[in-house]
Structures are given as C-alpha cells and as structure tokens.
C-alpha cells in the first residue's frame, strides 16, 4: 500500500497520435483511484508507464518515496489486470494464480494455502483444475484479479477490466471490486472510458482529455457536480451548455443569452477569468431542471419552451425542449408515479425551472 506520484511524465510515439504531455498526478495510498478519459487519450499508456511496460520520454515515477522510473518491469511491486485478462491458456486456474508465487520460490505449502484461500474468496474453488479457456467471462475476470493480487502488490492497476462483460455482470463485479479494495487497502488505479464505472468505484478520480492532459482531479461527487472545464462537464454525465455574457459579478450575477434573456447564476468562488462582460458557459445537469406546464414559484430561473421529443428510459424520462432561440435543452424527470398528475406530451408548451445554485459557470 503506497502512493504513486507522477512528475512531468511525457511520452510520445513515433507514429504520432497518443501523447502524454507532462503529467503531474498523485494517486493517494490505499485509495480506489479512477482515471477516466475518452478512447485514445493516453490513459492506458499512463498505466503502462507505471507498470513498466513502456518507457517514459521524460519525467519521473515514484512509488511512495522510491523512484521506480527506471526499474525493470518484473522488479516493480505493481500488478496489472489486463483488459482481455491475458490468462495463460496452457496453465490451469491454480497455476495461473500461483505463477508469481512460484517465480518467487515461495515454499509449495505456502503457495497452495495462499492460492486456495484467494480462489475460495473469489468463488473459484470448484474450477481449480480447469483450463482458463473453459471458464465464463466473469470467472476469467476473477482469475485475472486473483492472479494479480495474490502477490500482494503495492499498487493494483486495472486496465478497463470489465469492458468485456455484460451490463449486469459488470455491475456486480464493480461492487465486488469496491469490497475487495476495502478489505485489502491496496492502492487501486482503475483506468476506464466508462463514466458509470468510474463514478461507481472511485474514492477519487482524474479526468483526462485527448492530448493527454489531466483536466480535473476530485471525488466523483466533486467532478460530477462541480466540473472545472466544459470538457469535464460534457464528458462526465450529460449536461446542457448555454453560453452568454456575464454581468453584475459583485451583486447579483447574471448571464445574458441572446434570444433567451437574463438568467441568474451563483458564484461560490470568484475565478481569475471572471470579469464584468466576459463570455461564460453555464452548465446545467438535465436532472436539475424541473419541467411543468404550470407556473410555479420559488425558482430563481424560468424559461419557456416547446417539447420537441420524449425518450422513455424506464426509471426516468428525457424531454428535449426547444427554446425560443432554437437551443435544445435536455431534462430528466424521475418516473415516480404510475399515473402522474401532469402528462407532458409532444409539442406541449412547458416551463423549465431551476435554482441558480445548481448552475456551474465555466470559462468559454
């Protein structure tokens, strides 16, 4: 259980494309840390650099206080769970899991005890002598996990480990991973492009943008509720972005939007870029907006629009509403009742309400 610290890490490939451009990042010790980014942003490269599968062009990697930048891969106390598991097809489940222990020349009885214990914990005890190719996807996933943690690494690196599983199984594995991390207290670095997975598992997470930059670091709640950049706001969850001009920063901050009017915003902390009359982007999450055909009081903002389309999701319904300036806003409404008091249909005129505290103001 040690922290991972990256300092000015750079990596470029000859063919161009993926580039890490001076990454500074601390993955706190004993935490479940998720690295979230779109495909091709360099997050897997970052993980491979920590594992030692790639060499950095510049920068340093520390494990606790020890620098491991130039340590060969097989000497790093770090293990990976690969995306497609990379289980050894010629070895059975037991020998796959025992692989690292046998290399360390651990006594046979100890190996047997450790491996059996971990296989039992992963409900694999009845598959010990099977070849890994005879197992289901979920079971292979657990063998890969068992193989990586049996060695008690300081840091466990997970490279999109659940990408090959179906949705239900993925949800269950996520819970198992959280419980596992709680029990082991090993530092987990979980790399994924799936925001649902990242938000579910992470104690802390970092968002990476294409071009290999870290956009924001924080708890899932901080990232989701208070995105720092419009990239983060758009990439994590869905959001409505409205750009306009910022006014009255000091007293009663408002954003005026062409063809829509003035909307009240709340500025919890003044940023460097905010000044009277500057361009700004408002981010409002669809579920923070209340939709109704009736006039309601006690909301700081209201807009009128026409329902353009409705998408039924089961637990919620998504309304796409066209504003007078042809901007489209998304609204999520929980389906709380079998027979809602108010039925909203296509082409209905509706009011959209939200509180100014639920708006995040971003730099243009």
């Amino acid at each position, binding site marked *: 259980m040690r922290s991972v610290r990256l300092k000015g890490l750079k990596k470029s490939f000859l063919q161009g494309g993926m580039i890490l451009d001076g990454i500074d990042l601390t993955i706190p010790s004993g935490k479940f840390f998720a690295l979230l980014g779109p495909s091709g942003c360099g997050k897997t490269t970052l993980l491979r650099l920590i*594992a*030692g*599968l790639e060499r950095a062009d510049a920068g340093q990697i520390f494990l606790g206080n020890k620098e491991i930048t130039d340590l060969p*891969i*097989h*000497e790093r106390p*770090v*293990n*990976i769970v*690969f995306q*497609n598991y*990379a*289980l*050894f*097809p*010629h*070895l*059975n489940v037991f*020998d796959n899991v025992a*692989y*690292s222990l*046998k*290399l*360390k020349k651990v006594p046979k009885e100890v190996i047997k005890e450790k491996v059996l214990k971990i296989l039992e914990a992963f409900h694999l005890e009845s598959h010990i002598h099977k070849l890994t190719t005879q197992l289901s996807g979920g079971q292979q996933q657990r063998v890969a996990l068992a*193989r*990586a943690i049996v*060695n008690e690494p300081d840091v466990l690196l997970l490279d999109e480990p659940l990408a090959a599983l179906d949705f239900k199984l993925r949800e269950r594995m996520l819970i198992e991973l959280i419980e596992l991390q709680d029990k082991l207290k090993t530092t987990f670095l979980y790399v994924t492009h799936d925001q649902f997975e990242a938000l579910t598992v992470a104690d802390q997470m970092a968002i990476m943008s294409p071009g290999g930059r870290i956009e924001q670091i924080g708890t899932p709640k901080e990232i989701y509720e208070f995105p720092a950049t419009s990239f983060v706001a758009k990439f994590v969850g869905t959001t409505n972005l409205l750009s306009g001009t910022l006014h009255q920063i000091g007293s009663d901050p408002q954003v005026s939007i062409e063809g829509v009017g003035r909307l009240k915003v709340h500025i919890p902390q003044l940023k460097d870029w905010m000044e009277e009359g500057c361009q700004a982007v408002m981010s409002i999450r669809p579920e923070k907006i209340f939709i109704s055909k009736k006039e309601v009081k006690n909301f700081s903002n209201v807009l009128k629009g026409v329902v353009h389309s409705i998408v039924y999701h089961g637990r919620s319904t998504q309304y796409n509403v066209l504003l007078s300036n042809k901007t489209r806003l998304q609204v999520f409404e929980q389906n709380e009742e079998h027979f809602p008091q108010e039925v909203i249909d296509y082409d209905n005129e509706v009011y959209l309400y939200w509180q100014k505290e639920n708006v995040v103001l971003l730099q243009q």
Partner: protein
Amino acid sequence: MKTPQLAKHYPFAIGIPAVIWQVVFFYLPLALLVAGSFLIWTEEGGFAGFSLEKFTFFFRPPYFTVIGASLLLALSTSILCFLIAYPIAYYMAFRGKKWKNLLLFLLIVPFWTNFLLHVYAWFYVLEREGILNTLLRALSITHEPIAFLNSTFAIMIMMIYYYLPFMLLPIYASLERFDSKLLEASYDLGASWRQTLCKITLPLCSRAIKTGFFLVFIPSFGEFAIPELMGGDRVMFIGNVVSQFILGDETGSLGASFTVLSCIVLVISALVLYQLLSWFLKPRATTW
C-alpha cells in the same frame, strides 16, 4: 446438379482420385517393397517362402555405423536448425513490425532456386580457392587454404541451409499469432525474460516446434544427395546405402529390406524424439 448431390451424400467422393493416386503410386509400391524384403523367389520367379535372412545380413557393425550416422545427422540438423530458427522467428514475429512480410519473403526466395544450384553456390564458397578461403587469407586469419569441402562441416552447412525454412516457418506462424499481452502479463508477474521464454513462450508454441522438428528430422534422416555432394565418400548414410543396393546388380531386395529396416528405426526414433520434446516443452505445471 449431379455433382453437388454426390458431394452431399458421399462427402468423401471428391477424394477418390487422390486415393487412387496414393494407392497406385505409394501404398502398392510400399507393399511390394515390404514384401520383397522378406519373401524369397525361385530362379523362375515363383514363390519359395519367407526368410529374415536379408535382415540379418545388416546386423553387422558397418551398418550400425551407417544407421547411427544418419540418426546423428538428422538429430544434429534438427537441433541446429531449431537453435538458429527460433531466434530469427522470434525477432521477425515480435520486432519485425512492417518488415515482417519482407523478411519472410527473403527467407522463402532461396526455395525458388534449383537444389543443385544451391549446392554449386556452396562449392564456390567452400572450395580451396573459394570465397571463404580467400576471405580468411585476406584477413590473415589463415595462410594455407582449408579444405572445407568433403567434410562433415560442409554437410552440416548445406543441411542447415536447406532445411532451415522447414523449421522456421511453422515456428514463425505460431509466434506471429502469439498474444504479446501474455508476455507482458508474465513480466508483470515478476518473470524475467528467460523465465518467460521457458514457462510461457516455448510451451505455447510446442506444437509448432514439434512440427518443425519432424519436418526436418524425417527427411534429413534419409537424406543422401547432400552428404554425397558435400561430403565426398567419407561418411555413409542410410540414403547412400539404399541407393547403392537398389541401383546395384542383383541387390535390389537387399535394398528393400534395408529401407524397411531404416523405416522401423525412423519410426521408433521419431516417437522417442516426440516424447523427449513433449517432456522438454512441458509447462512444468507444478514442479518448477
């Protein structure tokens, strides 16, 4: 639409011409050969009984030497071919990148040339005033020309040169499909390069290695052109003895029985080789 119907109900019908060919030109002559090795004929060509006499004829030290020499030749050729082919295949498959196909092409090109041309090309290299001797003298490594030709050295050079692709191609094909993530997983779990080779890479292409061994071992056991051309008359191999008997006067049936005998030796030694390779390439599940 007759043919598809035939193929549907008798899926093996399509193989009939090949089977006829195989029976007439392979199994029948083989049966005659085997029969000829222990049947005795009268002067007029009539049947006169069985005898193992023609086999016991070969239970003599000179022939043991011949069989031993052939086994040694086949074994050393396949082992040397493996030792040379494996690193090349490994390099091509994992480091070749976009040059892969070009390298493969360059390896196959010599195959398009006539076998005798290969031999003559090597004559030019190895003869007294040949390229190798000239080079060695130019570099002042030797002062007198060395007689490379007509030696075991020349035989081995030519054997390896000729049989290398048979070992290389199956191994390359297997390594090329190899999931390099498995190597990364092995390193990640603490294995060094050598441990990964022994525990992951070699066991996982054991089938290709075995294939390569047999593609080299079996034909080189009966090889007679290369020893004849490159080795002069110094060492006799099975191929040379068989051709002498078969082509000689009245000794055809001795040639037949020697062929049968060497076939038996070949089958036994191939089985032993298979077991040895299987043991050697075993993943060592619980013992290592």
